[in-house]
């Protein structure tokens, strides 16, 4: 649940013993607590951040693999979908929902 977005770890430092870091979210940067990923992440890695805390490291290989699979799958399906949409809008009573 909840608003967690992926960001790139730019640098890490300790604040009175707590591991913190600067994370870049598409050009906007914020200080984030990295304590829960201590030992797992370094600058350049991506993490999911929720309310100022990194809660997981993004598995980039996994992300890439499934996304490529999805994209391939969808190229065939999208043509079907477009045909279906076209058919529905041409049929009587079809088109926009009321």
């Amino acid at each position: 649940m909840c608003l967690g977005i992926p960001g790139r770890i730019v640098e890490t430092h300790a604040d009175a013993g707590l591991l913190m870091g600067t994370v870049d979210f598409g050009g906007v940067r914020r200080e984030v607590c990295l304590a829960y990923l201590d030992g797992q992440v370094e600058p350049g890695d991506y993490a999911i951040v929720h309310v100022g805390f990194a809660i997981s490291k993004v598995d980039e290989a996994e992300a890439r693999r499934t996304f490529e699979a999805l994209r391939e799958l969808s190229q065939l399906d999208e043509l079907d979908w477009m045909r279906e949409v076209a058919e529905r809008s041409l049929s009587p009573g079809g088109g926009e929902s009321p």
Partner: protein
Amino acid sequence: MKYLSEYRDPSVARGLIARIRREATRPWVMMEVCGGQTHTIVKQGLLELLDGAVEMIHGPGCPVCVTPLEQIDKALRLAADPRVIFTSFGDMLRVPGSECDLLQIRARGGEVRVVYSPLDALQIARRHPDRQVVFFAVGFETTAPANAMAVWRARELGIGNFSVLVSHVTVPPAMTAILESPDNRVQAFLAAGHVCTVMGWTEYEPIAERYRVPIVVTGFEPVDILEGMLMAVRQLEGGRHAVENQYARSVRREGTVPARDLVARVFRLVDRKWRGIGEIPLSGLGLREEFADFDAEYRFGLAALEVEEPAECRAGDVLRGRLKPHECPAFGLRCTPERPLGAPMVSSEGACAAYYTCGRFRHPAGVEG
């Protein structure tokens, strides 16, 4: 944005929609228990695109919506206290208590501040040593590690003027309560991706087994949700009921262990009342005895309160999926985001508010001019 925008790819999304529609031999009923997922589903207009293949019932996935009325009233009392700087996540500010909400307390002179992170609240406590700073620690298991750390650090650094008002809830007991309900229609669940990022998915395995429901751990972007739905449809079509992980780029079976550990050290399971639903045993988190000093309820002597919900608010039925928001007789008429009867109409993730602002024109009575 990397690892975000790709999951909004229109052609991938459309392809998944086509595939769901092709593979579902009948309309399956699913529930998501996550306000963020509800938000995406409604905001992207997914429901009408899946009409006939998947029916989504929106579960009690908004911690804002399920925060019990007593806790809101305690928050209002603390916010009105001149000694206190009351800090909170933004979404809590408009939730109606018995009499008012935090925004109205602020209008009357109470000091109420929105923060992005509980550590920001701790910072405010350090900057204002002469004031009491209370943080409204609300949320599901996703937010518990952050709130736990704030309390832990407050003790470690001796920040004595900081305390938390706790109102945490956990997901699995709610799912079980829904499945136990005699009129339950839910056939599969999309489990909340960030709750599971922290907790892993081991708690869901016995639920899938006992109730024979597929549970797919799902992310938040349109492609994630559609892929999660497709995985659920495939299980349903194949007569299977297992826990699967769609959100593999973030979720592992064991979750984030250091986070779970600190949550277990700072919090313990307690019975918790869910607004509109009632009490669910061992469904909440409360501070452990050794951290009682940081519990605002102790520090400010807030008595145990019993508060009744307004009778007309059907939040409970909506949150349990018995009623769609626009089927509630008060929807759009006596209950609107400006004058809400209950939390699901106030919180922007609440099912009622989402339906109202994004889909109003589908409700015959609600359309103006």
